């Protein structure tokens, strides 16, 4: 790698990083806890976190936000899906200590995210209208995932089933197949999938 490539790589890395490297500034070497400041559903939290703590466990066990669910703790089921800086993530796979400065939205904050009067995000309302759940345990993850997915499609991010002829960057039309593909990281053992897809289509329409 020559020096010009190196500087190019460094510039782009700096451009996408929103928090100062290397993260929490006041962590002495050998520490097992660090102070983290993050916003969750619009509220600021500054807290000491065990370096082993996942974002999911921080939400559930420390911040009493139990809407985000732990189904597998391995990023396999999607029940823990939340939005971090607007993007959907498996919160069980993120260490809380790495989320300094992050803006987190959980299912408890979806209604406010919609920015409308009323108690529910339109997608939450659609889930009720379509009976898009039974036991409800995967539901918060399905909702957060779908909200993030809609934004991805709007921004033109392709999925495995997107027509390659479609120009990059133009909004993807969400067919049933597209919705199913893009939500496949969120398992539902009650088998509510057909109704979830209907609910998502309702908010697109």
């Amino acid at each position, binding site marked *: 790698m020559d020096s010009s490539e190196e500087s190019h790589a460094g510039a782009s890395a700096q451009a996408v990083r929103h928090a100062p490297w290397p993260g929490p500034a006041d962590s002495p070497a050998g520490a097992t806890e660090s102070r983290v400041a993050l916003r969750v559903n619009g509220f600021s939290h500054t807290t000491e976190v065990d370096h082993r703590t996942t974002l999911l466990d921080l939400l559930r066990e420390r911040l009493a936000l139990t809407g985000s669910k732990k189904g597998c703790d391995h990023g*396999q089921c999607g029940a823990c899906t939340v939005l971090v800086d607007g993007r959907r993530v498996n919160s069980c796979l993120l260490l809380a200590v790495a989320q300094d400065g992050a803006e987190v939205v959980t299912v408890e904050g979806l209604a406010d995210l919609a920015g409308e009067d009323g108690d529910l995000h339109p997608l939450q309302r659609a889930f009720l209208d379509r009976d898009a759940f039974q036991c409800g345990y995967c539901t918060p993850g399905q909702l957060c995932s779908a909200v993030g997915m809609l934004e991805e499609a709007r921004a033109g991010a392709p999925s495995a089933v997107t027509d390659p002829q479609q120009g990059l960057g133009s909004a993807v039309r969400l067919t049933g197949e597209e919705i199913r593909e893009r939500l496949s990281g*969120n398992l539902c053992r009650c088998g509510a999938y057909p109704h979830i897809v209907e609910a998502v289509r309702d908010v697109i329409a």
Partner: protein
Amino acid sequence: MASQAHNAVGSPIERREGGAKVSGGALYATEYTPPGCVYAWLVTATVPKGRVASLDTAAALKVPGVLAVLTPDSAPRLADTDDATLAVLQNSEVPHHGWPVALAVAETLEAARAAAGSVGVAYETEPHESVLTEDPPGAYTPDEVNGGHPTERRRGDPEGRFAAAPVKIDARYRVPPLYNHPMEPHGATASWRDGRLTVYDTSQGADPVRAVLAQVFELPEERVTVVCEHVGGGFGSKGTPRPHVVLAAMASLHVRRPVKLALTRRQLTELVGHRAPTDHRLRLGAEPDGTLTSLIHEVTTHTSRIKEFVEQAAVPGRVMYAGANSLTAHRVAALDVPTPSWMRAPGEAPGMYALESAVDELACALAMDPIELRTRNEPDEEPDSGRPFSSRHLVECLREGAKRFGWAERDHRAGVRRSGAWLTGTGVAAATYPVLVSPSRATVTAHPDGLHVVRINATDIGTGARTVLAQIAAEALGVGAEAVRTEIGTTGLPKAPLAGGSSGTASWGWAVHEACRSLARRLHERSGPLPPEGLTASADTRGTADAESPYARHAFGAHFAEVGVDTDTGEVRVRRLLGVYAAGRILNPRTAGSQFIGGMVMGLGMALTEGGRVDPASGAFLGSDLAGYHVPAHADVPEVEAHWIDEEDAHLNPMGSKGIGEIGIVGTAAAIGNAVHHATGIRFRELPLTPDQVHAAGRGLV
């Protein structure tokens, strides 16, 4: 009565806990955090059989924040239960891979996990046998099979008539171990205070949990409270108390703090039950006109060494088809495996896969439409018992489904519809599930403000119990459902049976109906304002709900599937699934539709993607998490339709309903397998129909 009450029985009203579930407010078992609550993490055995020779907890006890490591030496003693799977940390024996050997407790989840990982365990192992073979040594005929069914039933001369049959099918089918995998892992939050135990558990029934905890900790039941407010699915795996709840209570007793324990996803398969693998031999003999002359269904399955559970997979053959000559029998081998248990439609799900596949094979051999073949063998009475059916509309389901699915246009030739690399086909299978019901208690109080409060310890595992019980109460009271509140999900309420065997709504609804009718009569008889505390009526359906019925009572249904098979990769894609059911009166079409569809989706998984495996070397279930065991995801599931026919049946319960939670999985795998045969011309007899199997068999198709 019903016409006066809007939003009552039969209305598609929205589920009452829905708002809490979509906004994250619904609390599940490990989401309660009593003051001072600490965390437990389980250590499980890594050998298939033997004993723990030594446990080294020194390193674990040095983990900052650790409070204790419970071992068989230090754990509280438990009184005996009938259920050996609950006798945890009582001795050093290891009956199977995954058995609990220690439990770490710490101030935080992270510390508990680190401590558990620091426990050193040395084992003395013994030779083991964990894999079910075709003819397992030591297999025996059990006294009875799950559900209390006789292990064997014989009528006429099945072998002789089979030998003499002009057309016959003799086939073996295999269903692998299957995992329930509800989305909410098994977990509990337990606390002791002043000799009282309070447990938040994820269970299909809080009363059975209370009974077992009272038994093992030798407490009167009234000193145990069990709350199951919201339950993240169960599918049988939370049907009876499972070890996690006992462990959580032991840990709390030991450290004198409230304790949360959640099993990991991988621990589930070895600690909370699985569907045992079943090996089926099906022999069908028929006349050239399709009349069945012999039906022989023999099932071999496994159980563990510590508890006998026998999947009653040959039982559907006693219900489905007419014929004077039949043998349905079970054999079981006790292996060094985790204890199997209920999984959605135990017996019927694997049994009907085999039987309905064989019926399809027979139809092919006869060159007969498989719907016509089933219709021809429709019995006038339950073949095994001779009892009349309280109602049976299987043929109507098949015909209605055929109409909706477009079956009439089907070309019955197999392996001829090709488009590029894809072959397509369609298949059909019947479904059946018994009507089960248990006694329950319930109370209802009419308050002066017009509100009616129904109290019953029912459990909502996702069925919408709160909603449908309000509808049943509203109808019986002659009021709107909005005037009824239902309180469920804790042992503080009148005792009720568990949500299982598709019996919850019938069992609870019966008691709710009786209480409400009694209250309605008393309200009718009195005049003047109600007292401030309201007027309460109660019911107990012992002696009525469990009375012997002179009728054979079952729900029936028909499943239709269309599949595409990729001849390049062997991948099977389900393109359409359609079910039609005859399940008595449908009490809430909205929630009922979701249950039927959910059952079909699980049946799709059984057909194509779900297969547990036992590692012969370690005795472990392989691929037991959600990456290694593929439950259907969005992309696997096309548009799925559920329909039903109006069925009136006066011999069931006051609502006229049959259970609907399980029938959706019954026969779905057969319909898909039959469609794969229709697509490819190749008959697969071992689930799941994964690409490797289909591709290997289908090389000649390209």
